[in-house]
């Protein structure tokens, strides 16, 4: 069962745990604590004024709204992507599969300038889209493109293994009971995939909310329209308004924590329902 309370057979526990805790405290907890401590120099009312200013509220709308939309797009296309990768064979599949992780590996700044070069009015795609009245770069749509890019692997990579582990028996049973493919997908497969899909969605969302590098190049950064919250933090900082920047950072951190706990819960759920099937 356990390694025993009084004496552990495997060595190194105090050293490993001690090192882990010290390192965690130094790199993560103390610096994060500094943010909260700094924001505490504001009174509750001042804090509220800063974080509920119209421009700040608008930036939440952009950051959270577009991130939510991007995560939703990723959930749909990521599911299709994972499905195609697991279920079908086609030429070049290995390469496609390997490149799914590109957004993990490609620096965000590089992604930002590349996407801008593609979608700007005189860009590769932009020159075709603009005449159609579809402006991408420097609009909230551009932010959506960037956030979709960085979030894609999260959904694919959480759904893919679940899909791979699925026993064909499940679908065979459904088919033998007279269900067509769509019914089988809807009623049998989707419920099994749902926890993983939601986990991927939440991960993509969490990543998108905090994203900075790829967005600032392609977003128009117009207050109230296409200004994301991280940029607002930088803006505050550059006006020497440390406390204001910190207050907004606290709001984002709280959202991050909530998301993190949500994701952990989802993952537990996903693992448990995977164990059941």
């Amino acid at each position, binding site marked *: *069962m*356990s390694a*025993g309370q*009084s*004496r552990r*057979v495997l060595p190194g526990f105090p050293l490993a745990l001690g090192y882990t805790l010290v390192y965690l405290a130094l790199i993560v907890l103390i610096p994060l604590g500094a943010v909260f401590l700094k924001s505490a120099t504001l009174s509750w009312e001042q804090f509220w004024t800063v974080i509920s200013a119209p421009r700040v509220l608008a930036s939440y709308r952009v950051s959270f709204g577009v991130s939510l939309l991007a995560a939703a797009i990723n959930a749909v296309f990521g599911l299709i992507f994972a499905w195609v990768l697991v279920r079908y064979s086609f030429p070049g599949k290995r390469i496609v599969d390997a490149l799914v992780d590109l957004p993990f590996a490609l620096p965000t700044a590089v992604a930002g300038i590349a996407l801008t070069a593609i979608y700007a009015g005189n860009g590769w795609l932009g020159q075709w889209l603009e005449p159609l009245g579809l402006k991408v770069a420097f609009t909230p749509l551009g932010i959506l493109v960037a956030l979709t890019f960085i979030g894609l692997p999260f959904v694919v990579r959480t759904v893919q293994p679940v899909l791979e582990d699925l026993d064909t028996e499940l679908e065979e049973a459904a088919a033998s009971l007279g269900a067509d493919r769509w019914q089988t997908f809807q009623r049998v497969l989707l419920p099994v995939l749902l926890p993983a899909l939601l986990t991927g969605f939440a991960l993509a969302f969490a990543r998108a909310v905090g994203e900075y590098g790829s967005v600032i190049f392609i977003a128009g950064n117009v207050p109230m329209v296409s200004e994301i919250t991280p940029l607002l933090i930088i803006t505050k900082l550059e006006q020497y308004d440390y406390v204001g920047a910190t207050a907004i950072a606290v709001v984002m951190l709280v959202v991050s924590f909530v998301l993190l706990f949500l994701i952990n819960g989802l993952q537990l759920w996903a693992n448990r329902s995977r164990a059941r099937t």
Partner: protein
Amino acid sequence: MSIRVQNIIKQFGSFVALDDVTLDFPTGKLVGLLGPSGCGKTTLLRIIAGLESADRGQVFLDGADASNAHVRERQVGFVFQHYALFRHMTVFDNVAFGLRVKPRGQRPAESVIHSRVRELLDLVQLSALARRYPTQLSGGQRQRIALARALAVEPRVLLLDEPFGALDAKVRKELRRWLRKLHDVLHITSIFVTHDQEEALEVSDRVVLMNHGRVEQVGAPQEVYEQPASPFVYSFLGAVNLFHGRIQDHHLHVSEGRLPVGHNGFQPGAEALGFVRPHELDIETDPAATAGIAARVERVLAFGPTLTNGQRVRLKPARIRLFAPESQPAGSLIGMDGDGI
């Protein structure tokens, strides 16, 4: 080497895994620790090995208190349920591991290690697989390698945790006979844990029956099978018929009739449980018989031609053991033969 555990108590949270266990394991014997899952047998084995420490009580190895000795110092060989072979090492390197990690002063030369490993692989009849990796072996082969690896360091005791638990039935039977033979050659003090009664009875010199962290009975396989010391042992070892009734004038009265029980320690009117092995039940086909339990033949399997469907019979135990309902060992027991009724 002899092993003695004394007054061992072990709790995991509020769960009592071992409740004051005292046991002796004699030198050179193969002892089976038998019991249902959760009875504490594996915990006891791990405490003897030093992989777990007891909350209270002592472990004596060869009469010396080893309770505070580290696993490494106890010189035990441990065979894990899932083999725990090092998957990145070849069979050969797995067996050689224990020799190669010895402190420099005690480490044998590589050539000695080589011949020793060869010897062991011969012993477990797997010399041909020395270059393979564990994942390329079948379950039975893995288990034999695990055993060879444990033997390589010349342990004073061999401890096996459900050694055949993960194998399929056929391999399991082969392997346990092989283990018995191996033990007859090596004569190393061994303890093995199992939840399979057949396995325990077949392989062990002695069987220890455990339940809920307590020792129910210790004895030779024959002894524990024929003279179960408690209702638990009775029902755990082999098939048994259970009759719940009341004692009245040398009979156990149950709803379907009465069973003669002869002299016993029960007060008239006391409740009692009667245990009868299937082979100890005689079938009385005489419709005039009044003793025994009234029964009707539901379905005749193709075993004997003497009965027909729907025939009414009486069942008469040749031997019955009685226990008080809540008793562990307290119930008295009587032996009787068919003629005594």
